[in-house]
């Protein structure tokens, strides 16, 4: 059987998730033995439009992105959204709340009119994706889990429970016990609780679990003294695409 041909494409993003792919240093040779990478501008010069699996990093923030994405969807047998920007729109969705014109002015000043833009959207708002690798950036383990699962023809094991699970498994002191707060109670695990383990707090960069108790999250954030605006900002940072961030 011929090796599957893999392409990486990016839309609006920092390309940090593709860098994470290159960070899979111990496994890179294994990946290259199993697949042919035919399109990956962060790592190789060659470009081919003939591929089986497409990884898409980035959010859709211009109408002109849409036909490009649709063409990739048509070519690829399997399309994977890579990272927060592709999965939920990520930080890019913040501009939808600020007002697009105001954002353009902040970024481009007088030249704002030169550039095309639209509301930021995740990949699956435009085309169907077959899988998502969440996170800002993606955890390398989850990328590898997905690649191995595709090669073995099985469903990848992607957590659908709160970050609290992994945080407790590491025996971290809960941020709520330190007088701080955290989005881990509704955020999708899979990062091994990176941020709370190294002095940060969870921003829910991996999106929300499929059955988050958003009402209770708003209640406990309120009890921590956050204003309604603060609470909405917490949800909007990475998860503006969900209804809970809208009212």
């Amino acid at each position: 059987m011929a090796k599957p041909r893999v392409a990486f494409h990016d839309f609006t993003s920092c390309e940090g998730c593709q860098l994470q792919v290159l960070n899979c240093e111990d496994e890179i040779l294994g990946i290259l033995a199993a697949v042919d990478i035919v399109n990956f501008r962060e790592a190789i010069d060659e470009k081919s439009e003939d591929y089986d699996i497409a990884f898409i990093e980035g959010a859709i923030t211009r109408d002109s992105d849409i036909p490009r994405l649709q063409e990739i969807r048509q070519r690829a047998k399997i399309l994977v959204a890579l990272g927060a920007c592709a999965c939920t729109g990520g930080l890019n969705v913040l501009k939808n709340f600020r007002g697009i014109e105001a954002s353009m002015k902040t970024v481009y000043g007088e030249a704002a009119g030169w550039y095309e833009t639209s509301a930021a959207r995740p990949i699956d708002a435009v085309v169907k994706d077959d899988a998502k690798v969440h996170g800002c950036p993606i955890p390398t383990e989850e990328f590898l889990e997905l690649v191995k699962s595709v090669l073995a023809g099985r469903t990848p094991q992607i957590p659908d429970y709160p970050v609290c699970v992994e945080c407790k498994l590491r025996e971290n002191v809960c941020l709520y016990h330190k007088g701080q707060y955290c989005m881990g109670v509704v955020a999708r695990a899979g990062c091994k609780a990176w941020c709370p383990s190294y002095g940060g707090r969870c921003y829910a960069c991996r999106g929300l679990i499929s059955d988050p108790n958003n009402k209770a999250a708003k209640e406990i954030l309120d009890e921590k003294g956050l204003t309604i605006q603060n609470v909405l900002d917490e949800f909007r940072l990475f998860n503006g695409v969900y209804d809970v961030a809208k009212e």
Partner: protein
Amino acid sequence: MLPKVLSKDRFADFVARLLGGGRVFAPVAKGPQFAFAEIAGPDEVSRIRMDYDISILPPKKLFMPQRETLLTFKDKGPEGVRAEVKSQPTAILGVHPYDLHAIATLDAAFSKGARDAYYLAKRGATTLIGLNVKAPANENQFAADMNAIDPPAGGYDLFLTDLGDRYYVEISTGAGEALADDDMFTPAGAGDHKGKRAYDAAKAAHFTRKLPYDTRYLPELLDVSYDSLIWEAAARRCFSCGTCTNVCPTCYCFDVLDKLSMDAHSGTRERIWDSCQLEGFAVVAGGENFREERPSRLRHRMFRKGKYIFERTGRTGCVGCGRCITHCVAKISILEAFQQIADQVGA
């Protein structure tokens, strides 16, 4: 075996003696809280906090690690499968009575039916040095109600009680006897016995009972409360985050996952802690989830703690350590639930 006395001047020697026999785990500070951690050598004795109130995770993590490789496999067929039952001599120093009770419950659960080789190998290689505790760590503890403020008979090798300048050392096993066979231990005298009695009397006074009924009625009270609205009320704030079960010293549910190597035909089979509170816990083949709703999951945990584990193992499923209450971000309380069900009869 008669009790002995260990002078605190010799505590470092005692730890060194434990280190001579293998790995040593003891409570150490973790930020404002405590955790059982490995004491790598005699120079780390000062890290040990025998005055700790309670650890974040219970000692179960040392018999049933959060992640554990069960076997490795390669190619198809049984020839490529190798079980990875591993253990090394380990002493756990400073285990409070409620946690000793919990370990006894785990021992019973993992020995029943198909014996769990992974747990029992680690447990068998472990020396338990218990530590008496005079007062509850916080208002969430109700160990007296669960009959868990004194150590279980035979549930430790040595059991220490802090008498100020010395430890009163009770000995329960041959391993404990061998460990205490050294001149750092001296026979306990009348003053030592009296000191221990005074300690336990003070302890009984500090650990007040918080349930309005004797716990022998707990399973039946839960039975009649099965359809109570209290489960729904508590679950309103529940995040289904599994913290309560992860910090519980008697929760032992796990998931088993096959991790593939890049060649896609070799890999490892791993088990990780699972939780009945997670939405996917009770999903079966075909996609049916028989505990899909949060209240039914929350009730299931309370029933496991107050009824099912007892019925299954003959040992308590809850030792009243209060960890699940302390660490719940939503402040859901099993103690409150156990108090509320007293009024459910005929309601």
